[in-house]
């Protein structure tokens, strides 16, 4: 009775599934004889093919040399019964094996209870309200999380002994280790590209030395902080979301909460502060590598001596330029930490939830970075920095 193994040997002695229609003597009740082996993997008769424009009548199903059978026979009988019910005729299956009858009965009971799902077409107003609700929820979530982090920070200042300093150091180390090579490489290449582009234009006017000004200012004010934070958002920020998301799925965050430990203080704050502290350091490093990239191109392509390039850079890039980049990098770091931790801690309890949380963390992080950059551009413009 079990589904047979699909071995060729087993197939050799299996019989093809059959269903035969026999008209009754009086023309009223007819008999359908089912036999052979019924298996989903093999071609089996179906009810509509058997019907072949027959007039509706009562149907009695009889097993005839019935071998192994599986769901395919059950479905065949379910279709047969539905046909009889639709034409208000009897479907008689008493001659079938008990277990098959039981299964048919079970299916019948459920189909009787089943109600059609209501169509889910909503009016535009309902749709708009649900979208608004969703967004309000999201904004509330972010505000609440920022609030919790702020409270956690206040708690840290009041009682520094309770802060998880070791976690903070480990997170800083990880952020540093994962970001250092790629930030270095990307910043150097950005310096190279900027110098190339500037050189193409400036050489025409015999002003090649000003490549140092262009590279220096662009890297220190914009590209250094921007490139470093983008890389950290893609590496460390996503790492936070994946790690915290998995902790959420495994109920580790619940375990903290039930112990009365604020998960934000325990998990998010060390990460948030780690990336906030690391960002300016990485930006200094990115700035140096960017300027070196420019210097390399100038020395090789434009024949500008390294010393001349350095003096020109010193003259053009002021302390305020460097600090303006560093100040905003602190906020970029906060944005990355917030996005990563928030998405991780609010992740759905499933594998796909973790996936969504990580991609959402990187998108949110980058969006916040660009937003913050725009705000800083405005502020610096007003302040004349």
């Amino acid at each position: 009775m079990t589904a047979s193994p699909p071995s060729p040997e087993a197939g050799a002695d299996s019989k093809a599934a059959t269903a035969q229609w026999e008209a009754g003597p009086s023309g009223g009740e007819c008999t359908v004889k089912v036999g052979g082996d019924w298996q989903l993997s093999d071609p089996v008769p179906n009810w509509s093919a058997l019907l072949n424009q027959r007039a509706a009548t009562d149907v009695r199903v009889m097993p005839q040399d019935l071998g192994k059978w599986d769901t395919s026979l059950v479905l065949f009988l379910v279709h047969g019964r539905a046909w009889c019910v639709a034409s208000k005729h009897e479907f008689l299956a008493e001659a079938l094996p008990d277990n098959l009858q039981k299964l048919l009965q079970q299916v019948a009971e459920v189909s009787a209870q089943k109600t059609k799902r209501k169509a889910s077409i909503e009016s535009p107003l309902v749709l708009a309200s649900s979208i608004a609700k969703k967004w309000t929820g999201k904004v509330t979530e972010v505000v609440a999380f920022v609030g919790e982090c702020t409270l956690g920070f206040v708690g840290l200042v009041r009682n520094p002994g309770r802060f998880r300093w070791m976690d903070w150091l480990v997170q800083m180390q990880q952020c540093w280790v994962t970001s250092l090579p790629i930030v270095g490489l990307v910043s150097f290449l950005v310096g190279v590209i900027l110098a190339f582009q500037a050189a193409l234009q400036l050489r025409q006017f015999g002003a090649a030395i000003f490549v140092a000004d262009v590279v220096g200012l662009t890297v220190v004010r914009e590209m250094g902080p921007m490139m470093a934070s983008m890389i950290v958002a893609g590496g460390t920020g996503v790492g936070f979301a994946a790690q915290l998301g998995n902790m959420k799925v495994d109920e580790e965050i619940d375990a903290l909460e039930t112990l009365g430990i604020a998960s934000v203080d325990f998990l998010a704050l060390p990460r948030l502060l780690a990336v906030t502290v690391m960002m300016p350091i990485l930006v200094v490093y990115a700035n140096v590598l960017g300027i070196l990239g420019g210097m390399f191109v100038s020395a090789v392509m434009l024949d500008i001596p390294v010393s001349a390039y350095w003096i020109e850079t010193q003259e053009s890039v002021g302390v305020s330029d460097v600090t303006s980049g560093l100040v905003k990098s602190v906020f970029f770091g906060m944005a990355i930490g917030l996005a990563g931790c928030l998405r991780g801690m609010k992740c759905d309890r499933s594998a796909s939830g973790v996936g969504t949380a990580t991609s959402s963390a990187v998108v949110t992080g980058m969006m916040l970075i660009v937003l913050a950059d725009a705000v800083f551009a405005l502020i610096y413009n007003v302040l004349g920095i």
Partner: protein
Amino acid sequence: MSTTTPASVIEVKNLACGYGDTVILQDISFAVHEREVLFVIGGSGCGKSTLLRCLIGLLKPLRGDVSYFGKSFTAADATQRREILKTFGVLYQNNALWSSMTLAENVALPLEEHTSLTREYRQEIVALKMTQVGLAGSEEQYPSELSGGMKKRAALARALALDPAIVFFDEPSTGLDPITLREMDRLILQVRDTFGTTMVIVSHQLSSVYRLADRVIVLDREAKGIIAEGVPAELAATSTDARVRGFLNLEADLTRRHEPGPPSPAK
């Protein structure tokens, strides 16, 4: 065609399994017969799950052979392996339902992969399987929206999707309350009685062992192998091995302790 009496659906010969250099089980030999409910029991760390992983092909045996319907699974090439994989379904300890898919999609995936049935027909089979496990109407729900018992049922529906000849269960009692567990046991028996499916269940839930098992295999960590094999009630009463008696009588001990008094003897 090779015939064995009684028909063995699984034959394990001199199997050794482990991880790297660590041998967890060695010289394991047993057969599972058609329509049988076989329990693999034993204390924690005795290698129950390792044996199961070897049987279902997730872990390569260090030595020995596992064969299904007389065909070696261990030595099978990719095509044969795929054919053999179709003959069994597995219900994992944590259900392993694909979280990004609805229950219907979860159950339909094996059908999509292994049959050429039409979409409509597949949907009907899915509905039937869901009905069979008592989840009719939950087809469009996602695993994360279900209770532990419902997830277990859904996982069973998926394991049954291809009407396999054998179903493996890894700790089916995990996370279930006694009532849900009893219901699950009833379902397992019902499937066996309806389709004649062979069941191999790795568990240490004694109540289920006594309710369902035709035969048990007792594994032991020290012995790194099978220390007893037989009908649970008989083993509990007559085994000469104290470990086996101790394990199989645990439940009886607990029951006795919590009963108001011993059952009154016949007059």
